[in-house]
């Protein structure tokens, strides 16, 4: 479940910051405004997951597409491929190797709702200063933003989220520390602002797919 949270946060943060609004610190406020003007919609990624179950980090790579506020698509390539698609109402994770898919509902008091809602509101201009403590620092080729969640719902998702913004004011790295000590580091490249067709965020399981609903609904 925490992986889902991570994916959501990573994906939402990427363009979300591009549309973030004012925060108390004037410089951060300006920075967020400029990021918003430079909103991106898709990028390649490389991910490193350090989870307590495994001795070594799990590496993966792929591409993400995003459309605010909660539509996204994430394709993981390699020997263990997967496809994650959210249309805002439900979240699909499809595993081609196993011909299986997991479906998670959004809305109707799904456990994911508070996470998605909290993250969205956190990235909303009106609530960002209420939901995050934001510390910004200028680095050689961009900025480092350290986001610490204020609300209980987000604290259940992660302890801390570090974002690195490049010279082009695009998020190129996220580092998330989860409550159980797991850590997920994602690096983005080839960010673009090309329009994304709506069908990108639709998913229909291929015939013969074994579909499960882990949340029971």
């Amino acid at each position, binding site marked *: 479940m925490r992986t889902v949270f991570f994916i959501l946060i990573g994906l939402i943060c990427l363009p979300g910051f591009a549309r973030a609004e004012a925060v108390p610190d004037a410089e951060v406020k300006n920075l967020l405004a400029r990021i918003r003007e430079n909103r991106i919609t898709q990028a390649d990624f490389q991910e490193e997951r350090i989870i307590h179950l495994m001795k070594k980090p799990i590496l993966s790579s792929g591409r993400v597409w995003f459309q605010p506020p909660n539509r996204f698509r994430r394709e993981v390539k390699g020997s263990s491929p997967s496809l994650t698609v959210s249309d805002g109402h439900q979240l699909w994770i499809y595993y081609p190797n196993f011909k299986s898919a997991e479906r998670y509902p959004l809305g109707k008091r799904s456990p994911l709702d508070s996470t998605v809602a909290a993250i969205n509101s956190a990235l909303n201009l009106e609530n960002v200063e209420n939901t995050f403590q934001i510390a910004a620092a200028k680095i050689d080729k961009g900025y480092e933003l350290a986001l610490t969640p204020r609300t*209980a719902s987000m604290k259940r998702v992660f302890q801390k989220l570090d974002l690195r913004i490049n010279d082009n004011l695009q998020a190129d790295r996220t580092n998330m520390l989860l409550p159980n000590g797991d850590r997920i580091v994602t690096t983005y490249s080839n960010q673009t602002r090309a329009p994304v067709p709506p069908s990108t965020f639709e998913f229909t399981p291929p015939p013969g797919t074994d579909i499960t609903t882990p949340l029971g609904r």
Partner: protein
Amino acid sequence: MRISDFIARIITQRRALVWCGATALAVACITILVTSLRLDSDVLNILPSSFRSVQGLKIYDREFEQTRELTFALLCDPNDVDKLEDFAPAFAEKLRQQPWCTRVLAGSPMATPDGIRDLQSIAAPLLLNLEPGAFNETMSILQPQKIRDRLHRLHQHIEAGSPRAEFELSFDPLGLIAPALKPFAESTAIEQDQPLTSPDRTMRIFLAVTNQSSISAFECQRLMRRVNAFRATAHEGWDGGPLEILVTGRSAFVSEISLSMRYDILATLAGSVVLVGTIFFVGFRRWLPLLGMGFSLLLSCLVALTLGLLIFGRLSMVSVGFCAILVGLGVDFAILIFGRYQQARTDGESHGQAIATSVAKLGKAVFFGALTTAVGFLALVLSGSMGFSQLGVLIAIGIFVAGLFMCSILFLFIRERQAPVRHDWVFEIIKKYVCWVVRRPAPMLIFSSALLLLLSAIGFSPIPPLHFEASTRSLEPKNSRASVALQKIMHKMPMRWEPVLAVVHATNPQELHDDWQKIAVHWSDLQAAGKIKSFSTPAALCLSPKSMQRNREQLSAVNFPAAHETLEQTLDAEGFSRDAFASAFTLLDNLQHLVDPDTPLPNWRAQLPRSSSWWFLVDRYFGQDPLLTAGFVTTNQPVSTHAQREDLGRNLPVLLIISALMAFFDVSLLAILYRDLRLWIIQVITLAFAIGAMIASMKLLHIDLNMLNVLSFRLVLAIGVDYGIYVVLIWQKTREIEHDVAGVVKPVVLAGLTAVAGFGSLVLAKNPALSSLGSACAIGIFWSLVATIFFTLPAMAAAEPKPRHENKIDTD
């Protein structure tokens, strides 16, 4: 010597002795009440005890931990839902720190690491409790190849980013826990059936089990004082808009009801004393007899309460209505007796002679009045409700004692040397009315008949209807904070507290297990057929000694060393961390240990930590006796309320039928007493008119019937019969109409007005049932009085005219 003369002599010549006797009686009653009084505040005891549904609720109420459970709710504005989510853990922690709180449930136990760990800790007994087929299938997971396949598959899923695989390995590294808990998860779904957060997230629920030693009224009041003190400071740390902290639960209700009972008694007593006292003084211009009447009534109440307590052991809250009814009835006796005494004094009789005359002339009427009333209320024993049975017995005892005291102790408060009233304008007005009616009864008879007939037509016609408020909420105090809290919670989360309850009490664990297995199958069928929405049972937690023993024997076939070794090798091969799988090795060791037949079979009760939030779930299903259990069915529509209405709906007709039977008894008694068909018919018509006009008034004033004020019909009948007896008997015997009839009608009028005032004062009560009882009785007695004065009297004058030259009353 006649009894009346004996009483007169004792009162006048042995005053000190009578005073000592009355004082000793009062002291004895107070001593017994103070040392032994136990109030039964359970609203369920007002319902018919013969109903199985009521019996089940009583068992659940008495034997299950939830009676000591308080429900807290935080309610905020929609804009503050995030703040509420932040504030909730802090509030829960504050709640846990309260000295009166033993356990708090602030969210689904599955959402916390402790909750998951606690669940893992009870896996072994639940695993052994599986049905043999399921157990063997589950244990096959420990075959080396299956261990390897499972871990490899899950590893691949984790590599692909599956959150499910990660959660599965964290929760159930060996794959045995999920099958063991499957029956438990299937039969209990607390988060779905009993959500702790409202859908709009503006309300959060916290369940707290208190450490109160009992649920007595005083203990609940003490607890709620501490709870309210906590509530006053619990906002600290909240920085949002308005935040309501609601509290409800058994203790909150008991506390409020008991406190409102105290207020009701004081407020209605004060109102009653002022109103009755004013009317009494206007009528007789004497204060001391009024004091005597109050003392006699108080002593009657004490005697009745004491005897009632000795008979029943504890007194129901509905008995609060007893004092009001007894006062309403007893006042009549006092006013009649004193009125007759005063009239005798005005006629020139001495103090002793006047006492003897009043007792002699009205003793019979008082006796029959008390008899009809007592028998009528004793019939409530047939209602099947403990509360109403007590009420009937208390009134029956009280009214007899009141009749006795009014003919004796009341005279202790009448001074011998006090001069009779010279100019009695009330008596003069009534005397003029009596003269006019006797001379020309037709105009008044026609007018009153027309009015009462019209009202009776309205009353007995189905339109407009008289509503029955069959909900027990009609008995809750007005503006009850606990009730308001419950209503708000129900409004926000209508799924809460609406399941149908099934109670199973077995004689041994195996029987309990088997019973619940059968019930679960039956309910599954009902659910599949769409007849019920969902259900939850303790079936998974009811351990079967037979299954556990049989499954333990099967464990010996499992190669635990091989499983242990395979697990180690596979973890290394797949790159898993051994530390993360420590609980898997522990479970393997525990199961291997159980192979030894000398090892006691595990019990989840011993393994689940006392601080675990899962006990909230367990306590829903298990009583203090582990063999006493409850299951819950959620229906497709709120039939619990419907069923309740039906049950109560059945009860209301029972009470009305009893009232009808007693009315039959009353009219039969009147027939024997009067031995005059015409007078008897007049009296019966009077009673019908009074009841008809009463119902019409209730309809027009939109006063609903409820569990308590339905008794008013019985009371109005009793008082109506009494008024009839007083007036008809004196009519039969009088020879000096103006003097004798007016001499009785005046006390009847005053008694009626004081009864109306006394019952009217009950409107001040916070308890809506009590206030509606007061208003219904006041209306009914008013119409009884009106019918007696303006219909019975002219009707008798028309039916059996008396020559005005008869100027002397017959001697008995």
